[in-house]
Structure formats: structure tokens, C-alpha cells
């Protein structure tokens, strides 16, 4: 069986002041169906560019991206991107946001799906609220629910919880785990937070500084729910931080 996501030797450079600045250099990876893969890297290393290429928003200069064995040229509802800044429409209510991707269905049906997913992420009672009436953590729930509502096979998450405070961040991680236990998705998570990566992922890829390549891979063979304070987790965390250039003794 072929992989869900197959990335084969992609490169990307941007033109800056006439000179080409290589951002992503020869990245290959594959993600299995239902797998949760986290990609960590130093800030500014080209993580977001890599994600935008895999999600179909940016074309690579070279190499190819296969989803279910078929080349990917543009974004599709099969894989939904959730980014750090968020893209919940502030002019629509929570329910209208959740119905957004469900265009060609009867209205009654759309509302039912929207309300179901609002309940799944714990937003029951807020269906009629506008985004500016919600907190940052609740907005992330809306974002997640809007993605889930179209039943995507893949979730692309680009630093989804980075803008949240530490406590809300932790809550959202647990929430995500809970939702993923119910509906099995393939997930690619990009983050600079090593703890978040080992808390959630089955496999962690470490990126090098720009131009970025995959520098190391770590399997996280620990059962859920994982305790961040367990010795195995601590060991893994130190090892990944070491790959990222943080001294072993300092960790």
C-alpha cells in the first residue's frame, strides 16, 4: 500500500533583491494513512513554506507531492490547513463558519452537521456567536470544527496553538487527541514546540536551519495519554533539542 502523503525531493527558493534565496532544499518524506507526524525546526527555517507546498498553496520549484499516489497541484478539501493566525471568518457566526465548506447540500443538513461538530469541540451554546465574542482558545475550536465538518482525510496544522497561552495550549492538545481518537485523520503538525510534538505525534521529523532539509527522525512509541514528565519523554525531548542545537546539558 502506498503512503497517504508522499513528498519526493521538493525544493523551493524565493527571489530576494535579485538573488535566489533557497528556503527548502531537497525534502523527501512520507506519511502513512492515519499517522500523526510532527515536523519541528528552528524558527525561520522554512517550515511554513514546506507546509504550504504540501497543502497545495505554493508550487515547489522541483520535486513532487503525491496524495494517495496522485500528484497534487492545488489545495483541496481532502486536506484542510489550520494555521497559526487562523482563518475563521469574523463576519460569519460560528454556525455559518462551520457550514462554509458544505456548499451543495440542503440547508437543514448543513446546520445539522455544523451543530454536531460544534458539540464535538465543546462549543455547544455558541453556534450563534460571532468570532469576536469568543476567546482565542474557542476560536481554535471553531477552526478545528470547521475543518472536521468537511470530513477531510488530512489535517495540515501549522503552529496551530502557538498563539495561545500555555494552559490553553495544553487544553487544545488534549482536545485534539480526544477528537482524533473518534475520527481517524492523517495529521501533519508543524511546530517549534518540541514538547507539543512528542506529546501528540507518532513520529517527529527535525528540520535543519535554512535551506531546510530533514536532519533527523524520531519514532515516539509511547502509548496515549502520555505523561510529559515520564523519563522516556524527557529523554526524547533532550535528544530532539540536541538535534536542534540546544546543548544536552542545558536541557
Amino acid at each position, binding site marked *: 500500500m502506498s503512503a497517504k502523503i508522499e513528498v519526493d525531493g521538493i525544493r523551493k527558493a524565493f527571489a530576494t533583491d535579485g538573488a535566489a534565496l533557497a528556503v527548502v532544499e531537497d525534502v523527501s518524506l512520507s506519511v502513512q494513512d492515519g499517522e500523526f507526524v510532527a515536523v519541528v525546526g528552528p524558527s525561520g527555517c522554512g517550515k511554513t513554506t514546506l507546509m504550504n507546498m504540501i497543502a497545495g498553496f505554493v508550487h515547489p520549484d522541483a520535486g513532487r507531492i503525491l496524495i494517495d499516489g496522485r500528484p497534487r497541484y492545488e*489545495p483541496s*478539501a481532502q486536506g484542510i490547513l489550520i494555521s497559526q493566525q*487562523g*482563518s475563521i*471568518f469574523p*463576519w*460569519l457566526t460560528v454556525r455559518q463558519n462551520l457550514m462554509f*465548506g458544505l*456548499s451543495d447540500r440542503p440547508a437543514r443538513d448543513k446546520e445539522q452537521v455544523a451543530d454536531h461538530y460544534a458539540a464535538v469541540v465543546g462549543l455547544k451554546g455558541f453556534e450563534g456567536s460571532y468570532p*469576536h465574542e469568543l476567546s482565542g482558545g474557542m476560536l481554535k475550536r471553531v477552526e478545528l470544527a470547521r475543518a472536521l465538518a468537511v470530513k477531510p482525510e488530512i489535517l495540515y496544522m501549522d503552529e496551530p496553538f502557538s498563539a495561545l497561552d500555555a494552559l490553553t495550549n495544553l487544553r487544545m492538545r488534549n482536545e485534539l487527541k480526544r477528537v482524533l481518537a473518534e475520527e481517524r485523520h492523517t495529521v501533519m503538525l508543524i511546530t517549534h514546540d518540541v514538547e507539543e510534538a512528542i506529546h501528540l505525534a507518532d513520529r517527529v521529523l527535525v528540520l535543519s536551519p535554512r535551506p531546510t532539509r530533514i536532519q533527523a527522525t524520531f519514532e515516539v512509541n509511547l502509548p496515549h495519554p502520555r505523561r510529559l514528565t515520564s523519563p522516556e519523554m524527557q529523554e526524547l525531548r533532550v535528544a530532539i533539542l540536541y538535534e536542534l542545537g540546544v546543548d544536552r546539558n542545558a536541557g
Partner: protein
Amino acid sequence: MKGIRQGIPAVAVIAALVAAWWLAVVETRSVIFPTPWQVVAGAGELVKDGTLWVDIGASLMRVGVGFSLAVMVGVPLGLWLGWVKGAYSTLNPLFQILRPISPIAWIPIAILWFGVGNASPIYLIFIASVFPMIVQTTAGVHAIERRYLRAAENFRVSRYTLFRQVVIPAALPQIIVGMRIGLGVAWLVVVAAEMIALRSGLGYLIMDSRNAGNRYDLVVAGMIVIGLIGLLLDGGMRLLEGLKSVRWRYVR
């Protein structure tokens, strides 16, 4: 209660100005310039014989028709210019040349094309208010953040949904700003047009009062009515900014 207290200084300034005006007229023993009381009496006359309502109605009708036409043309055109790069680069230079031409400068041509009936001022109002609406709507579309357009792209929604649920609501706050500016300009223009070319309306009332025996009490009464109606029109447009689907632009 707080609103009332905040309004006190504004009322005080207006009261002081009226008092100074009264005093100045009495002190200089002016025979032409009216006292505030004479203006009130003059306005009462206009109300009693009904001409005030007729003139207000005539002016508002012209603004209503001209402004509505400008909304119907300006908003779709602005959306098109904002969305299609080629349309913007082709038409924007032309609009930038036409825009600074004062609507008053169009009066001779309006009379030539449309005569001295209602069509002339309606055309002038249209010309005056359509450009701010095109410009603001276009700017509103250009200002849509890329993350929202990407989300629409990601969910593969139809073009209809894209415009209905993303582009138009995202630009709506700016469209409303354009409508406010457009209506303000329209009200300025209708009075000017009526002073020159017409036989009814508040502009005509002012000119006619002067020409028919220097009735400056009626001139000033007309001016004050114009100011008050302008204030009400702007207040009406401001209510649109309170719409739930537009409020996101004004919070935070």
C-alpha cells in the same frame, strides 16, 4: 444620563453662537440680516404654507434616486475592479481623472444632456457619489486578508459562495464608508444644483428667498434645515455600521 452630560458642551457652544449672532444683529441695527427669532418665525411661515415640506421632499427625492443609482453601479463596479487585476489597471486611471472634477463643473453639460427637469440633478448626484463608492469598494476588496481567501480556496467553494460569503462581507465595512461619503457628497450637490438650475428644492428655496425681496430670514432657515437633514442622513448611514455582520471591523 452620561450621554446627556456629554452633550452639554455642544449645546452650550451652539447657544453661545446664537446669542452672539442675536447680539451682533441688535448692536449693528442691521435691516437685512435677521435675528434668530426672525429666522424661527420665517421657518414657521414656510411650515404653515407647506413650501418647506415640498422643497425638502423634492431635494430628498433627487438624492434618493441619484444615490440609489450610484450604489447599484458603484458597488458592483468596485467589486469587479477589486477582484480583476486587468479591470483595475484598465479603468482606474480613467476614474482617477474623472473623480476630482467637481460635480458643479458638470452642471452645464447636465443641462445640455438632460434639460432643466429632475434628470439633471439626479445625474449630478450620481456622478458625485458613484466615485467614492467605486474607490472604497475596490479598496475594501484589495484589503481582504490572504488567509481568508486561502481558506475559501482550501474548501473548494463555488464562485458564488466565495463572493457571497467571503469577498462581499469582507469588503462591506469599506462599502459602507463609501456609501456614507457618497451620500454626504450627494446632499452637498443637490443643493448646489437646485440653486442654479431648478424651480424646487431647498437650494431653490434659498436662492428664491434672496431674489424675491431679500428674505434673509428664509435663507438662513433653509441653511439650517439643510444642515439638520444632512446630519440625519449621516446618522442613518452610521446605523449600518452597527450591523452585527459588520461589527467585527470596529471591535478590538
